[in-house]
């Protein structure tokens, strides 16, 4: 009997504890919700177009962490503040998270936003969610990355990645001069539209056909510095006399440089990249990367927010592909190829 009674006592005590835990748990949610709600005027969900209600704009980036998307988000926030609009920034949980972006679109539509700016993680997987958002009267604009097909959204504000690739390729070709290229390619993610555009643009700029013998090796790096370094170490083992390197982005170039420099081949290899991040431009200035092609994420964000605000005001929808520009940055210009030096680059870089 004593056993049973002491057992009961114990369960009572843990029971009291549970009720306590319930209270604290509940309190935590209330705090989180109210603390955040306070800053964003709770209860103003009357998106019916009253002149005083702020226009709501949703932004969905691929991830929260990449400096490129951080710049894009900050620029969008600043532009929204300037225009008197509210910006809600959401993102996928990881690079490639389509489901998270679908959820974000659904919640933003339910929230009553006028427009959604999205950098899709999956150019095809996101289509159904975009369609239902547009059917609900929301204007949807792709930033940076196009959907497939591109006309699934109202408009796309992005870098012409093919053109960026062409600039990168032309600079490498011009720098090599008369030498026969022996090219290594640090690609991004297989199947990505941006990756294909840059890759093919580069080859076009170099004047090399896909599959031609000048391409001595290709590896996927996911645009990741660590993977790029490993890939380049292995490629250099296979092709010790390489003289040209294509990189999908600046982290890949940074990883590639580590491997090239460790192998003592910096003098023999010409490497270029695409992005225009401040780290990347600094690497160009330091001579680690020969040239880079700058993108302008802030411009994409500003134009995107402006387009949604315009749509909210007078119903004008943006349409088609709007090129936000690409600028070659190098301290070793090639004749006949427009470029800016790294001083200009450092003033206009992102991240």
């Amino acid at each position, binding site marked *: 009997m004593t056993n049973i009674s002491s057992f009961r006592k114990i369960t009572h005590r843990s029971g009291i*504890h549970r*009720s306590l835990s319930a209270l604290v748990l509940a309190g935590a*949610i209330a705090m*989180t919700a109210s603390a955040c*709600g306070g800053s964003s005027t*709770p209860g103003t*969900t009357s998106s019916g177009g009253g002149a005083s209600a702020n226009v709501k704009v949703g932004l969905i980036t691929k991830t929260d962490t990449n400096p490129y998307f951080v710049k894009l988000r900050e620029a969008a926030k600043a532009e929204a503040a300037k225009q008197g609009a509210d910006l809600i920034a959401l993102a996928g949980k990881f690079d490639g998270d389509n489901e998270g972006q679908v*959820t974000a679109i659904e919640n933003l539509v339910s929230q009553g936003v006028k427009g959604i700016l999205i950098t899709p993680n*999956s150019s095809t997987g996101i289509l159904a969610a975009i369609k239902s958002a547009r059917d609900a009267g929301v204007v949807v604009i792709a930033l940076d990355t196009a959907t497939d097909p591109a006309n699934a959204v109202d408009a796309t504000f992005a870098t012409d990645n093919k053109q960026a690739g062409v600039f990168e390729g032309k600079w490498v070709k011009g720098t090599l001069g008369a030498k026969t290229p022996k090219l290594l390619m640090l690609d991004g993610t297989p199947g990505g539209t941006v990756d294909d555009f840059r890759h093919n643009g580069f080859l076009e700029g170099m004047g090399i056909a896909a599959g031609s013998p000048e391409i001595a090796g290709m590896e996927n790096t996911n645009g990741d510095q660590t993977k790029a370094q490993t890939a380049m170490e292995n490629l250099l083992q296979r092709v010790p006399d390489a003289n040209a390197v294509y990189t999908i982005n600046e982290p890949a170039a940074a990883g590639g440089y580590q491997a090239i420099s460790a192998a003592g081949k910096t003098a023999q290899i010409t490497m270029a990249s695409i992005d225009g991040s401040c780290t990347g431009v600094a690497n160009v200035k330091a001579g680690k990367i020969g040239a880079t092609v700058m993108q302008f994420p802030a411009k994409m964000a500003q134009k995107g927010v402006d387009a949604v605000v315009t749509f909210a005001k007078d119903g004008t929808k943006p349409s088609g592909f709007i090129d936000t520009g690409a600028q070659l940055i190098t301290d070793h210009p090639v004749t006949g190829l427009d470029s800016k030096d790294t001083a200009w680059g450092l003033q206009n870089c992102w991240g």
Partner: protein
Amino acid sequence: MTTSSNTISPAPPPPRRDWTWVARQPLVGPLAALILAVVVFSIGSPRFLSPYNLSLIGQQSIVIGILAVAQTIVILTAGIDLSIGAIAVLGTIVMAKTVQSAGGVGALLIALVVCVAVGAINGSLASFLRLPPFIVTLGTFTAVAAASQLYAGSATYPVTDPLLTFFGQDFGIGAWRTTLGVGLLVVVYAVTFYVLNQTAGGKHVYAVGGNPTAARFTGIKINRTLLMVYIMTGVIAMIAAWAALGRIPNADPNAYQTANLDTITAVVIGGTSLFGGRGSVVGTLIGTLIVGVLRNGLTLIGVDNLYQNIATGVLVILAVAFDQIARRRTQ
């Protein structure tokens, strides 16, 4: 919400004026948190309680919710399954790639076999070889995720087969419309609840997790119970894969990379103990809904992503902290 009071609760009714019987139910904490979140958000946004929005929260909870059922069963045995999301992703790829040649039913069956096979591998290693489930499923997670990429050729596959996308269809109860996937979610929870609480096999799961030594002395075959649990996770992963194609008709090897951790989040917030033997799928359903309600509600009142993650993270730590303290008190 019938109580599943899986803590061993004493039979005699509590004395009068003793209010602690309420608190003895392990679901009170999570349920209070859910109700409070719903109240706060419905005050914060007039759209929150709209039928459309509630349906959205349900739809957004389908895949993680179903996978979290499997995670609950494993955690009840004091195990953990880090591979559950990867198994489901492999399931979606298998379905999408075999549907052309095998047809809808064939594709589902092949996916079932594949998912159960991976579950059986986990189960055999965790039971007969006594390897820690954390390590076993970390290994299968890595291997299965890579196998999905290889099999898919790193491409995504749009799915149009009506049977594979079956759970994306709408249905209505009165004016309230939602997808069949939400119905499936409810059914999976109901069936698992019944099995865990009303069948001998279900009781064995609790016994093996709560006190393996005692379980062995009472004649429960521990290895067989564990193996069955992991095989069931394979079955549930296949169901989740089917539901996933209904929600987004696109098989994508990059999808659901965080699903493993998301299911653990739901289980833990739902009050199930990571030490096994204590908890219920009802708690997990509440935990899943809390995460869904937070994400949806915070978006509706205009809160950015990172703050939403902070809220979820805080909840997980609180839930585990209380479980730990509760355990210490009872020892």
